[in-house]
């Protein structure tokens, strides 16, 4: 401690407060472009492209780190709102007050609370993945199930529902479920300890199973 100078108290109190907000350790990005000056369209398109790229990665899952490196929650939000809107049960009908169909809030809560619970479980089992990365991956991997939901709704437009149509719907949802689980496995498997992969995969399986069940059991148009 002999090489340390101690300033007078009054000196330090007189120092004016100015300087960069950057924390020590980060290099000052003076040459980083400022997004305040560009047109809004550019900003929006950049984010839209990022979200689109991630959807593409989910639909053709190869073990890539794109989803993990630059995580965002736009995609999961869009998917969640879309699925919740399509899955709403009929309401405001005098004949059946509450037909038991999942309400918007129920789907919303299942989606996000499910993602959080699965992420917590993954972390507790020793996975080295951040909280939001995991929520991002789980959210994006619902995309195949959303496609299955669109197919089911198209099939439900037909007035009379036959067994054949039900089988088609069932197969579509099962395929979506398998695809989602496989996609999330491709992204999340590497962050788990090798002998505990199945312990981490089971809650993901349950999560997508519940969502698939909500989709397949939704028969009202």
């Amino acid at each position, binding site marked *: 401690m002999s090489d*340390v100078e*101690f300033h007078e*108290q*009054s000196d*330090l*109190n*007189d120092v004016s407060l100015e300087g960069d907000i950057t924390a020590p350790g980060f290099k000052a990005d003076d040459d980083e472009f400022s997004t305040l000056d560009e047109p809004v369209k550019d900003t929006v398109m950049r984010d839209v492209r990022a979200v689109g790229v991630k959807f593409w990665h989910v639909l053709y899952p190869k073990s890539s780190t794109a989803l993990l490196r630059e995580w965002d929650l736009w995609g999961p939000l869009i998917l969640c709102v879309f699925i919740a809107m399509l899955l709403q049960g009929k309401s405001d009908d*005098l*004949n059946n*007050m*509450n*037909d*038991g169909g*999942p*309400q918007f*809030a*129920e789907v919303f*809560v*299942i989606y996000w609370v499910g993602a959080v*619970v699965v992420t*917590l*479980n993954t*972390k*507790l*089992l*020793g996975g080295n993945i951040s909280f939001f990365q995991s929520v991002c991956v789980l959210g994006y991997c619902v995309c195949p199930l959303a496609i299955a939901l669109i197919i089911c709704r198209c099939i439900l437009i037909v007035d009379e529902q036959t067994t054949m149509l039900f089988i088609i719907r069932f197969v579509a949802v099962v395929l979506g479920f398998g695809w989602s689980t496989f996609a999330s496995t491709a992204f999340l498997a590497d962050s788990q300890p090798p*002998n*505990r992969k*199945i*312990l981490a995969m*089971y*809650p993901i399986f*349950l999560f997508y*199973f*519940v969502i698939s*069940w909500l989709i397949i*059991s939704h028969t009202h148009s």
Partner: protein
Amino acid sequence: MVTTTTTAMADTSQNWRTQQTAVLDMNDMEGGGSDQSDYETNFTETKPRPPKDSGQGPGGGYMDSVKQRLQENVTNMMWQSGKDKAKSAWNVYGNIDFLRPYFNVEPHEVRSRLLYSFIPQKPSEERQRVHRELYGPMMIIFTLIALLLFQMKTADHRVEEGTLMGTAFGVCFTYWFGASGLIWVLSYVCNTHLTLIQILSMMGYGMGSHCVVIFLGTIIHTSHDHLFFYALWAIVGGLSTLRMVSIIVSRTQGQTQRMIVCGAVATLNLLFLLYLHFAYHQIVEDLSEVFISSNKNLQPMENIADNVVVDDKSAGNVPGEVVDEVKQAIEPLEESVVNLVDKTIGATVKQLIDKDNVDDTVKVLPDKDGPLMGALKDTA
């Protein structure tokens, strides 16, 4: 690494608690920012200095600037101490590392524990091992919630307030925590050597039997006969209850104490399974069909007799005779039912329609809280 953790966990819970307290104490002793070097020392954390040490200002505004600086110092000090307290609270309570030892399991361990939860062990002199594990119970509960959702949807369970998923969640987690809490209190009174985590773990694995029975009961659906369900309830539920009873017997001294705790565990486990089956199941399918479809096409009484097809001629016209007798019994009742409906609902409708302004009725009818809906709700 795994063995050291488990031997650490074999310590009595007192050591674990003092470890927690030690964490709390250390954080409190740290005070404000003793890690920071001298160059980053925040002087606003210390007592606000007497005015003469602050900078010099012009004579007139001197007291004002001093007051202002004092105020800023106090505000900053409170903010900093509040932030530090919140951070230390978060580090202790919000840190999920707190739960990490209870999730330290391998797949084969989970599998074997699941299987052994159905196999009661003969009580012997030594205590039966109860693993402090929360992964298995949590997965069983989530599976049970998914199965309940499945059962509720299949049985067309209607929930007026709230949602199906919320109900399933609430029921399962309330049972797990509530029953475990009750058994914990009883085991404290009866001197059973089980910690809360062990009880949570034990009751959680006991819910595995609930999963199996609900799953089989929903898949193999026998509508009028609950014998299959009762058989499953007795066998599967009984096995897991016996397992829990044998654990408790091996860890309790004294006959009365054993009976109290074992009785409580058995009652809770078995009654919960009955509750899950009957509360979310269409108990009387025939009654519900009759009442709900009352506004759909009802067949007039005369046609029903004609629709009864008698295949077995040798039995005589027994079904036809039965239908005739039922008709005779119901006919006087039919009139009184019709009169009753006319008096209540019909009267209300007439009352509304007889109002001077027809527009009022149009406004009233779709209104869920209006008098018509109220009357309908009352008589339904």
